[in-house]
């Protein structure tokens, strides 16, 4: 057993209102720079939709992630020979148009325009070239199903659906959507790290955050294509690639990442997960139908004596183990099993989990043309969900609809149990059936409700102390400078220390 700690996250999609506050917080803190204007380390997509960059999920186009190769995995678009072949010309690279050309408006024209018959307008100006542009797309151009013939209908996850099923989805009374906020998954088996020819990308030992060393990056951009989530971006100004750093300077000082801190719907949870690093290869190369179970199996119980012993042997601090025991991610993912990884079939073992959305139940239009959304009970059952189960399964369980149903049934049980508590208009049998269908009980349902709806800041973000005082000891002997100066000097003063 090789126990390591990993900062993991849960996004509760039922709570996401699609306000993009997270994206703006991230942009203002990190990517409001020349060359980074087009990057959205955090973005919110509308599903169904093609996302950002366009069709990022279609690995037939971008060749990201891993392929199962016997008992192991190999990179789909890079690797030793293929990487060498493509090192000067990466054939699967997204271009700026696939993201969007960032722009601003020439607001000064509003003030300097000469007097005339028409109101002056502020024309859009490209932030890359400075020229006037005709805006073709933005990072969330298909927000709320905007332009759905071009975007929603081309969602890659519809592949499992028959054309008639797809058609019925887009009927006026049956259309539905939900939001999918995305950041870097800080994967356990990151394809970006594996693909980097310069060895510039690394996974931090203490918390598993994946970072790009800006000094070693040589702009090969293999990570841009290798990351199946397209969360590594090339900065055309600095000539280096960049990605979400999970606000590690904030984490190290005990603050939640900017996107999570600012989240209006409070959908985001962050905590430590302990995992067994020896099993990464085995999990990544599991058969597709076992992928989710295999991944959930890699996270080990932080209350287990053996795990704690192995963790301590690996130098994991007591405070980190304590944080793992309190982790909301542990509860959502392992204890309750209602949070699932996004696209586990990419085989990168992502550490961002999603509680899937309970979509509105199906309505129908009867023979007289009357719109009827009335169902026998309040919650008609997840089988009548507007979005086909295959679609959600394609997103979160690598196509396993049974597993998807189970998770949704549990979420439904929580709602029914809660209604029973607050309104009390349901029969005991109805409640018991729902709980049984969701393989849960009233106590657990209540715990899920509390962490979902009433959680405090400290419960949502259990950030372990970073122990920077210990990590500095790896770099220098603190005894040498003990008692010398209060703060230390970058440059020694002329008069000496």
């Amino acid at each position, binding site marked *: 057993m090789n126990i390591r700690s990993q900062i993991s996250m849960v996004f509760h999609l039922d709570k996401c209102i699609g306000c993009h506050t997270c994206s703006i917080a991230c942009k203002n803190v990190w990517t409001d720079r020349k060359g980074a204007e087009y990057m959205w380390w955090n973005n919110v997509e509308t599903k169904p939709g093609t996302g950002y960059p*366009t069709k990022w999920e279609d690995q037939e186009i971008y060749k990201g992630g891993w392929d199962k190769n016997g008992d192991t995995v190999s990179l789909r678009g890079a690797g030793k020979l293929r990487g060498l*072949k*493509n090192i000067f010309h990466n054939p*699967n690279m997204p271009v700026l*148009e*696939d993201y969007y050309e960032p722009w601003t408006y020439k607001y000064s024209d509003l003030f300097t325009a000469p007097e005339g018959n028409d109101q002056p307008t502020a024309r859009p100006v490209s932030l890359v070239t400075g020229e006037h542009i005709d805006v*073709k*797309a933005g990072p969330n151009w298909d927000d709320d199903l905007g332009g759905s013939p*071009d975007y929603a209908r081309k969602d890659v996850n519809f592949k499992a659906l028959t054309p008639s099923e797809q058609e019925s989805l887009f009927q006026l009374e049956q259309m539905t959507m939900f939001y999918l906020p995305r950041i870097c998954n800080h994967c356990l088996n990151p394809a970006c790290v594996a693909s980097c020819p310069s060895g510039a990308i690394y996974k931090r030992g203490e918390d598993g955050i994946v970072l790009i060393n800006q000094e070693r990056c040589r702009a090969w951009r293999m990570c841009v294509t290798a990351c199946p989530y397209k969360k590594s971006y090339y900065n055309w100004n600095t000539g280096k690639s960049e990605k979400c750093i999970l606000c590690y300077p904030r984490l190290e000082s005990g603050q939640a990442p900017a996107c999570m801190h600012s989240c209006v719907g409070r959908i985001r949870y962050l905590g430590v997960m302990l995992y067994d690093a020896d099993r990464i290869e085995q999990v990544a190369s599991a058969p597709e139908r076992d992928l989710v179970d295999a991944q959930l199996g890699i996270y080990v119980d932080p209350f287990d004596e053996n795990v704690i012993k192995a963790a301590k042997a690996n130098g994991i601090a007591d405070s980190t183990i304590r944080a793992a025991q309190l982790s909301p991610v542990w509860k959502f993912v392992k204890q309750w099993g209602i949070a699932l990884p996004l696209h586990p079939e990419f085989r990168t073992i992502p550490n961002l989990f999603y509680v899937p959305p309970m979509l509105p139940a199906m309505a129908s239009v009867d023979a007289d043309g009357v719109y009827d959304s009335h169902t026998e009970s309040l919650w008609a059952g997840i089988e009548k969900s507007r979005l086909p189960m295959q679609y959600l399964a394609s997103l979160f369980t690598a196509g396993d609809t049974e597993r998807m149903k189970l998770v949704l049934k549990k979420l439904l049980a929580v709602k029914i149990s809660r209604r029973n508590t607050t309104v009390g208009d349901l029969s005991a049998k109805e409640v018991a059936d729902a709980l049984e269908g969701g393989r849960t009980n009233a106590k657990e349902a209540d715990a899920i409700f509390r962490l979902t709806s009433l959680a405090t800041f400290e419960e949502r973000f259990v950030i372990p102390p970073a122990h920077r005082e210990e990590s500095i000891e790896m770099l220098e002997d603190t005894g040498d400078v003990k008692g010398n100066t209060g703060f230390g000097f970058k440059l020694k003063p002329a008069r000496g220390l």
Partner: protein
Amino acid sequence: MKSWKMMCWAVAAALIIGTGVSAQDGAEIFKKNCTACHKIGARLVGPDLTGVTEKRSDEWLRKFIRSSSSLIKAGDPDAVAIFNEFNGTPMLEFQFSDAELTAVLGYLSGFGAQAAKTDTAAAAKAAEPALVFTDADVEQGRAIFQHSMSAGGPACVTCHNVSDAGLIPGGLLAKDLTHVAGRIGDQGIVGILGAPPFPAMAAAYNGSAALTEKEVHAITAFLVHADKNTAATAEVGGKNTMLIWGFGGLVVILLGVALTWARRLKRSVRHDIDARQLRTI
């Protein structure tokens, strides 16, 4: 002020040096610059210069020496005739000063038609006997051609190519020498090797790096041999082959690139979306 003064000094110095050139120096200049190709009383790479000052005007000679090619280009009948007579090999261009030209022409005028007549018999006698080349000379010459000289000069093959079975392909910096013997004759080769008139060769084989007589003989033997034993088309064909192979190679490489990356992303993934939206506007 200072530059004005300096210029005065420079003009004065030039005048002193310029007027200092005499007929004696003419002989020196001729030996240094002209003997590689010209001889008095015999035809070498270039024509016999006996009585040349009587045959041509002084002005014409000065123009020809400074730039024969511009005369040819201008269509001067005499210049064109000479150019054609000597296998289309233009004379090198010499940037002599007026004084130097006067000296050389003065020196040449000493070998008038009269002198030529009286000296004809002597010249015929004095004409060097035809060179004799043995197989050993050829072998030695081939070896010298691709190795550096005894005095340290660079190997011929560095800049020159000769199409010969026993020789590696040579450089393309200077002329192909496969048929040089046919163009300028063995005496011409000896002359050029003895006192190279070409700036690059003169610099490479000057002073202490000069070729020995034996080396000159061997190299000449090899070049005569190469001229006789290589098909006349080899040289010309070689150039075309280069072009054909180069172009063919480019096509093969481009095809390879096109096939290897046949499935690359050829345009933006959004292309279809943008195209459809533009159509509907």
